[in-house]
């Protein structure tokens, strides 16, 4: 008997919970509101991530200047294209910090700028591609003079 009562109560509870929105008119959100997915922003982040990896590849000697230059031009163009998709704006900006709440893209841009600055300021040896400490005057590996090389 108790099992029957338990079963009836279970069925009633389930029905009540499932059908309540239909009768009360209570609605699930149908749109994302603030959580809207921005395809342009997503693609820009992908392009920025690729740019960041490109800088690392250059810094670690995986890419030489010619390959780096070509790929960087393409990736920068894509990042800027998708910046346009987000609603236009300051498309020429390279690493000044991003827009609004897109914190990850901002951080990526900052990191890319930092990487470029490090390479520009001559941390990487032009001869053996060894990455030296910031402020070094001679390459720790081959003794070549460093500082002021770069892009």
């Amino acid at each position, binding site marked *: 008997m108790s099992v029957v009562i*338990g079963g009836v109560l279970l069925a009633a509870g389930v029905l009540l919970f499932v059908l309540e929105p*239909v009768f009360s008119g209570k609605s699930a959100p149908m749109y994302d509101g603030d959580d809207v997915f921005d395809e342009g922003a*997503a693609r820009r982040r*992908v392009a920025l991530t690729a740019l960041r990896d490109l800088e690392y590849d250059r810094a670690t000697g995986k890419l030489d200047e010619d*390959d780096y230059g070509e790929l960087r031009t393409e990736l920068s163009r894509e990042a800027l294209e998708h910046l346009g998709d987000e609603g236009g704006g300051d498309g020429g900006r390279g690493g000044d910090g991003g827009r609004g709440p897109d914190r990850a893209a901002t951080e990526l841009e900052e990191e890319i700028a930092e990487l470029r600055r490090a390479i520009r300021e001559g941390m990487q040896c032009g001869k053996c591609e060894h990455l030296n400490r910031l402020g070094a005057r001679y390459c720790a590996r081959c003794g070549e003079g460093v500082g002021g090389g770069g892009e």
Partner: protein
Amino acid sequence: MTVLGEIALWIALPVALWGAAVSFAGGRTGRGELVLSGERTVHVVTLLLALVSAGIIAAFLGNRYEYYYVVNYSNRELDTYFKIAGLWAGQRGSLVFWTLLLSVFSSIAAFVNRRRNREFMPYVSGTLLGILSFLLIVLLFADVNPFERLGFTRFNGLGLNPQLQNYWMTIHPPTLYLGFTAFAVPFAFAVAALLTGRLDSRWIAVTRRWILLSWFFLTIGIIFGMRWAYEELGWGGYWFWDPVENASLLPWLTATAFLHSIQIQENRGMLKVWNMVLVVLTFLLTIFATFLTRSGLIESVHSFAENLTIAYIFLGFMGGMAIFAAILIIHRLPSLRSENQMQSFLSRESAFLFNNLLFIGVTFAVMWGTLFPLITEGFFGETRNVGPPYFNRVNIPLGLMLLALMGIGPVIAWRRASKRNLRKNFTLPLAAGVAILAVLLATGIRHGMALATFSLAAFVMTIVVTEFWKGTKARARIAGEGIVSAFRGLVKRNRRRWGGYIVHAGVVVVFTGLAGAAFDRRVEQEMVPGEAMTVRSALGGEYRLVYESLSHTRPRAAGDVQENDWRWTALLTAYRDGERIGVLRPEKRFYPVMEQTSTEVGISSSALEDLYVIPKDLETGTDRATFEVKVLPLVPWIWYGGMIVAIGALVGLWPPRGVPVSSAARERAVRRPVPAEAAG
């Protein structure tokens, strides 16, 4: 409790059907109240299936031998944890368990997305509830109801198959099922993307973590299964190309291909149709794995089939889903066009594409070999099996090509790689591969596949290690950090990439372990206590085994309850090069309830190899025994590699910096979520 579980099963079906209908209707008409009702249904079905599962476990624990399922998979003497594991020991219970896990993942997906991806959610809920409804229909109407009664009550059950009475029984099936069922969520999002026409990278961004989660569980599930099969003699070794083993491998292969190809879609806007096909194919293969294990269509040592009816039902369902997905993909073809073209044969895209083709090649080869008995029966009227030689001959070369691509992919440039780029990045790894080859040849090794595997392993490992080393060093210099924090920072910045490299390193270790089979040594000897035998290792050194004694548990009765099993245990002391390394206790067990025997091997592991002792004949009275002793080089590396793969997958899965885990915290921290890749 059991009766309540039965009632819950009957309530679950109409509720799930209602939920599927109102979810699709709500999505189509834009009526939020229907969508909410559908999402509530997902949670309700989960609760009901939890009650169903609890009911089955209660029947096992309560020795309710009026239930057909309990009678067939339990007995009074069975240990409690095997009674709990009885939920997934047989066809009926494991279908319930599969359905429960699917509903749990469905609930998590509905909860996590209660305020985001709303455009997709009605169709996601509808699809998941549709799959759940199908499984509930099977459970209730395909003669596999776990609550079916016998009409009388037996005093005792028939017992659990001795091969399942192993602690891995409590770990391996649930892990594998988690992998199978988690993949339904990406499939549901793909269907939602196709139905809504929102075919940009959103569905991939949303489901990336689900795919990785499913892949993680599938991977560790397969590794656990290999370990179980290695320890339990009856399964045929860590990999026997058994149909059920193959069935678990198939979705893993396509899921792995998918994990790589989505990167091409994200980075280059290519392979959109291919990715849709892969997600559908992987989902269908998870269903295939489920049905193959439970249908009895193909004979397998792992199979726990009872009737063939559900084989045809599952085949029908798979066919229906395949047609439905194909129609949707064809309908959306114009929106699935590639945004870019492949620029060069020498590029990362190209390497990924080859990787995909190879994975599909292996999938096809494994599928063909698995279904071969059915094909021959259909065409020639007699069943023929292809067996391990076919699988090894076809898949080892393909696997080695995949191993090579695992090294090439990460360092070759996107879009197009120049010859300079190739020279720069491949000189050292190639030199490492050639050096290993030369050393191995010099030591007299002539096994072609083993030589190829070890050389390629050196090639790939050099690339992975170099990538980590160079990346860490660069970051240490640029950020002014120490090596350890630079390494941590590097991985944290792009968990997906570096997690992937860790996975690659793990796979290299697994391959190396598998190649060790080329150097197995085996000796068989009959002994009496006090005698010893020796066996040499291919890696050098000699093992000596001294047979000390044979003991056995006496069959005894305690009231009406007897021992679950009777054991004959041999005691052997193992020495390596004169040094004692441990005691091995291989066993023969007899299960009186099932009247079956099982063999438990004795294993002594070191970092490089296993000493593996199989008791063949144990004679009580004379205590004479015959042992087969194997020295298996590099087998432990399979398990080490598996652990490394799991760690890599966890690194990739870990929530990225800047994305608070809880929704409330997320809302406090930022107004918009930061996709996983962003913080990478």
